[in-house]
């Protein structure tokens, strides 16, 4: 028997800021610009405050189910910061950070989770998809959007995001597989927050990494410290540039920890180990970035206080706008079903309007 190795692979892990905010020697240029880093810190903080507010709205009956991003803020804020307006985001339900960075407003996000389709009628990011609720379908949408972009010879990238549990779905493989074959400009982010609702990552795969799932599709796979915004942004920037310039797709596994429940409808204390969670809190993304800023004399308690005040105002204004938004009227159930409502359905529309008026 003759045995030769016909294929082999390695997965790189990227980290620039450790949990204490200590930078690696080769930290990228953008991370040396303290204005940029202050902005990113503020964006992550704002997402955290927004999440808390959304939770409070749900708990007081003013909004429906909501999935927070606590502990995972560096992922969406990181890739969102690397995106341009021309790029397209295909989000899932935990992509709040990416959506906010790409121009979707807090009011729209609240409206969405408040049960109104108006929240998906984005005023700014007009080509971005509404969040994908069924697991992993968005992976294929991203490849479809990228195919259209490729056919039209445009220099735009597509970003999509999925939880690590979602990578068990067939659509995940089908989507990255075709992206590999057609060399599509997609960046597939895996938010590996260790939990698919209550199911831990070791029940989800026998792979050492989720990034290596890319290898089976002939796609580059990279693992990154998902709590290190410098690493997330740097790797995202690399993959986005590659995508825009015909270099093809990249799968990026961002390792983090879900410090919150799956959604407001979940109670993670039923399955999460408090000791593990306590450890995870030491790794969360905001504290290490603040330490890094402080080491560079770019942040003070005064800055922190000023930011808190500003962000609270901003979020409160969004909540007020959400609460003041007009209630949807019954005809909206029908008016965007087709370009033109079928004859057979018109009497139902009229009946719903009449009932609604009572």
């Amino acid at each position: 028997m003759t045995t030769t190795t016909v294929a082999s692979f390695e997965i790189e892990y990227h980290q620039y800021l450790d949990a204490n905010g200590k930078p690696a020697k080769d930290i990228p240029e953008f991370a040396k610009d303290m204005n940029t880093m202050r902005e990113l810190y503020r964006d992550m903080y704002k997402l955290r405050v927004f999440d808390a507010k959304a939770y409070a709205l749900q708990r007081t009956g003013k909004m429906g189910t909501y999935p927070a991003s606590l502990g995972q803020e560096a992922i969406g804020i990181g890739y969102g910061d690397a995106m341009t307006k021309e790029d397209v985001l295909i989000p899932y339900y935990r992509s709040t950070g990416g959506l906010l960075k790409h121009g979707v407003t807090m009011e729209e996000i609240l409206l969405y989770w408040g049960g109104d389709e108006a929240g998906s009628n984005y005023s700014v990011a007009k080509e971005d998809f509404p969040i994908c609720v069924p697991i992993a379908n968005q992976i294929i949408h991203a490849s479809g959007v990228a195919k259209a972009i490729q056919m039209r010879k445009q220099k735009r990238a597509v970003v999509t995001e999925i939880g690590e549990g979602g990578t068990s779905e067939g659509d995940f493989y089908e989507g990255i597989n075709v992206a590999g074959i057609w060399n599509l400009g997609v960046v597939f982010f895996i938010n590996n927050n260790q939990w698919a609702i209550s199911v831990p990552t070791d029940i989800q795969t026998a792979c050492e990494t989720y990034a290596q799932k890319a290898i089976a599709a002939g796609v580059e796979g990279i693992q990154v410290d998902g709590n290190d915004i410098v690493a997330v942004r740097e790797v995202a920037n690399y993959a986005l540039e590659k995508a825009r310039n015909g270099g093809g797709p990249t799968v990026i596994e961002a390792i983090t920890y879900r410090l919150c429940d799956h959604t407001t409808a979940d109670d993670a204390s039923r399955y999460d180990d408090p000791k593990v969670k306590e450890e995870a809190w030491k790794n969360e993304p905001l504290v290490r970035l603040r330490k890094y800023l402080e080491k560079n004399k770019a942040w003070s308690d005064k800055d922190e206080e000023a930011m808190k005040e500003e962000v609270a105002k901003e979020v409160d204004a969004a909540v007020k706008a959400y609460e003041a938004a007009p209630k949807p009227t019954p005809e909206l159930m029908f008016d965007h079903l087709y370009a033109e409502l079928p004859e057979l359905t018109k009497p139902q529309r009229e009946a719903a309007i009449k009932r609604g008026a009572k």
Partner: protein
Amino acid sequence: MAAITLIEAVNAAMAYELEHDQDVVLFGEDVGKNGGVFRATDGLQKKYGKERVIDTPLAESMIAGLAVGMAAQGMKPIAEMQFMGFIFPAVDQIFCHAARLRHRTRGRITQPMVIRAPYGGGIHAPEHHSESTEALFSHIPGLKVVIPSNPSRAYGLMLAAIRDPDPVIFLEPKRVYRIVKHEVEDNGEEYPLEACFVDREGSDITLISWGAMMHETLQAAEKLAAEGIEAEVIDVATVSPIDMDTILESVEKTGRACIIQEAPKSGSVGSEIAAEIAEKGVLNLLAPIGRVSGYDTVMPYYRLEKQYMPTVDRILDEVRTIMEYK
């Protein structure tokens, strides 16, 4: 003008739109060099190039999901499912996204696309190749379901489906892909969707069918005429949303209705048509509504498929029963 078959008409309509609209793109399994397993896309890759007539990897959910992404960018994908029996992995994408994106974004993202699939029995095919599951798709708001019964209708309806701003499931009755030829002028003229076609006028009973069963239905109508029963024959063509006005008008005239379909009887398109007639036209009826359907059982493997599918005789028996009510 040339005499062409139903499948050639499908091909001609797709070619016409590929020629005239740069946003049209066609893809699926084996649609390229091979021209599709039935040859529906024969010659199209050669003429319009590999960039626009694309062989995909073998994954139906991916085919439908790509159509969702491309349509969202304003392209007009025509995606082929090789057989309707293999459409089920794609149902997730079709139901959850293609059918809903316009609605859930308040019109911001639209889904102009055609999902084509050969369907129905009668060609001695392997298992899973012969079912008629149009009712599954008809049930979903946001989709249109179109089934041509002959070559000229296939040409005109396919053009309309491609140009329609919403997702259309285009089911091709493969048993009649090649049984008749029509003179079809390749002039880009579409037929309306959401419209029934009256293929035979009559005053005694309305026979309502679509797809391949139109052929048995029209044959039955000729035999009935020899018995002195003049049947009006309606080709539903768009089985969702249905043009009930045409059907109700006919039933008002004839006072009798019989629905003929290949699909299982229960929970079917035929059930819906019968219910609509009962709701809106019951006072015009002289007799109970009749239905000639496939049986409520699994589509059998091909040795029994002829026993399963409605025949001219079954239609005649049902009509004669209906005609007994005076």
